[in-house]
């Protein structure tokens, strides 16, 4: 048993998840629990960030899947916190922080001096930049940029020009309303202004209702977006750019565009009362270093939050240019407004659920 426990410690990542119950006896310090998502996202983080950061810092980690801010809050409220670092969307972190579920980040430990200004907050440190894009089956509608290929949300809605089935977000309003307004002709820079009234939200909902007969599936995870495109279950889907790139690597006939996409970021947050707060903070400082982020694009096409990573990365030029946070791509996109979500998320979700339940 000892033998086995030691060997799992030297090979963290996936094996560690299975071996977690054995680690306690063999380790000197308590391993910290780092929670991310399943599918290619978590695997990419293991390969680029967690494994090397753990090795270099000597901090042992236990990896779990199924990260969620609601579970984090449940742990905090019930006083049984077992997680130390949790991956979350920026909006989720903002909501959880507002509910008092998160520890403040100690920026004397975590160095964000080279970070983009808007990619860290008091309660979370950006881990990567991603985009909510529209993707399509390239066999059906052509390669991105080729004549006749879809270019805008208006095309996503245009079932006459692009006949076929669509997939859209299920049971969560994040990134669901903005595309509808853009498809309805609202310029990107006015989207959140329009959405800040109930009429604006209803306008977006109505636009989605218009498309609903053609929405064959509502996805509720990144893994599902990739699967739907891989299986050819739908012809066009919204989703996260990295998932589609990885699906493409797996042989899926899928392409996407950054035009009118939503620019957003994921981050690390720490549950209030995390059991290994200090060690976890050190680990957070370690993974936020540019040398790790520089490796991320090899595994998933999400951009670094640390500017220095662009200097350090050995990734080829095409790969760098395909990242959502690349200066060429950023101007095409609409950055997600955390302010708007903080104020309107609850109301928007109620309206969106009304539409879904119809």
């Amino acid at each position: 048993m000892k033998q086995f426990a030691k060997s799992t410690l030297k090979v963290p990542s996936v094996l560690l998840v299975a071996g977690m119950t054995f680690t306690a006896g063999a380790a000197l310090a308590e391993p910290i629990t780092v929670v991310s998502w399943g599918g290619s996202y978590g695997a990419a983080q293991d390969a680029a960030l967690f494994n090397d950061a753990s090795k270099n810092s000597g901090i042992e980690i236990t990896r779990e899947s199924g990260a969620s801010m609601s579970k984090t809050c449940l742990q905090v409220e019930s006083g049984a916190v077992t997680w130390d670092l949790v991956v979350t969307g920026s909006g989720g972190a903002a909501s959880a922080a507002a509910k008092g579920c998160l520890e403040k980040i100690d920026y004397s430990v975590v160095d964000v001096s080279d970070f983009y200004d808007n990619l860290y907050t008091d309660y979370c440190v950006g881990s990567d930049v991603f985009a909510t894009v529209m993707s399509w089956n390239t066999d059906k509608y052509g390669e991105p940029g080729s004549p006749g290929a879809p270019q805008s949300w208006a095309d996503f809605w245009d079932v006459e020009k692009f006949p076929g089935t669509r997939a859209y977000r299920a049971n969560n309003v994040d990134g669901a309303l903005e595309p509808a307004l853009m498809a309805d002709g609202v310029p990107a820079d006015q989207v959140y202004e329009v959405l800040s009234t109930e009429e604006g939200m209803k306008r977006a909902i109505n636009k989605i209702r218009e498309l609903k007969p053609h929405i064959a599936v509502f996805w509720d995870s990144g893994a599902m977006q990739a699967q739907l495109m891989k299986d050819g279950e739908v012809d066009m889907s919204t989703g996260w750019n990295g998932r589609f790139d990885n699906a493409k690597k797996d042989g899926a006939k899928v392409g996407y565009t950054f035009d009118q996409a939503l620019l957003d970021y994921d981050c690390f947050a720490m549950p209030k009362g995390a059991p290994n707060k200090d060690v976890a903070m050190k680990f957070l400082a370690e993974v936020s270093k540019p040398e790790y982020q520089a490796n991320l694009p090899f595994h998933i096409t999400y951009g670094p939050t640390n500017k220095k990573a662009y200097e350090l990365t050995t990734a080829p030029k095409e790969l760098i240019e395909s990242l959502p946070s690349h200066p060429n791509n950023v101007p095409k996109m609409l950055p997600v407004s955390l302010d708007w979500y903080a104020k309107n998320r609850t109301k928007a979700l109620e309206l969106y659920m009304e539409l879904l339940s119809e």
Partner: protein
Amino acid sequence: MHQEPRDNQLNVEPLRAQEVREQWKLLSLASPALLVIVAIILIPVTWLFYLSFVGGDGQFSLEHYRKMIEYKSYSRTFITTFKVSILTTLICILIGYPLAYFLALLPQRLAGLFMLAVLLPFWTSLLVRTYAWLVLLQRKGILNDFAMQIGLWDSPVKLVHNMTGTLIGMAHIMLPFLVLPLYSAMKKIERDMMHAASNLGASPTYAFWKVYFPLSLSGLVAGSLIVFVLCLGFYVTPAVLGGGRVVMVSTQITAILENQFNWGAASALGVVLLLATLLILYLASRLFKLDAVLFGKD
């Protein structure tokens, strides 16, 4: 002779005391079980009720219930939930009744073998079974491929990510819950019953509907109720096979928790679902003798 009745009564008091003591002892034997029930059922349910009346500001509030009236999505998900549950139950009855009847007719050993096949879903992971259906039923799935190859239909038929797929998956998972009680009720029907009916002049069809069916009804009601109630709270299968188009109460509870961390609103939904379930059980108990059905009384 005259003193004897008094003597005879001497034992009465001590015996009564002893009886009371024994009853308490018996009760104390049951206390661990009672404690477990209180711990795992009553306390969480009470907590659920309490949470559903606490507003965002931590004060007593009816806001969660008010919201359920204000937004149509709530009543719709309840209707969907009941619709899915009723349809699944009906499908299970349509498939399960003939199946149980067939099993009850088979000789014991053969019936055991078939029962194993019926029970197999019980021992397979729910998630695995659900995704297996996805693989079978999706647009470019095995079934569509096959049907198009042999020319049954020309373009893919939408079998999953909708109500159809949900019902197929649910019925598959729920079938054993219907078949088991039904089979055991059917096994209790003596062969002589059908002989008697036929001997008295009933055709096989008449004998079935007037004698066999009424006698198997208790098992059918028990199985159907179990299936129905289990369906009401089901999450995984509708979430995966419904493709986001079949929004059940459980789905909505998850959405509220995941996006709003709003335990009060989620609890309120749970409370309403619980009450609706109890109401249905109550109505069913008016219609059928439920205690007989569920606890096997005659």
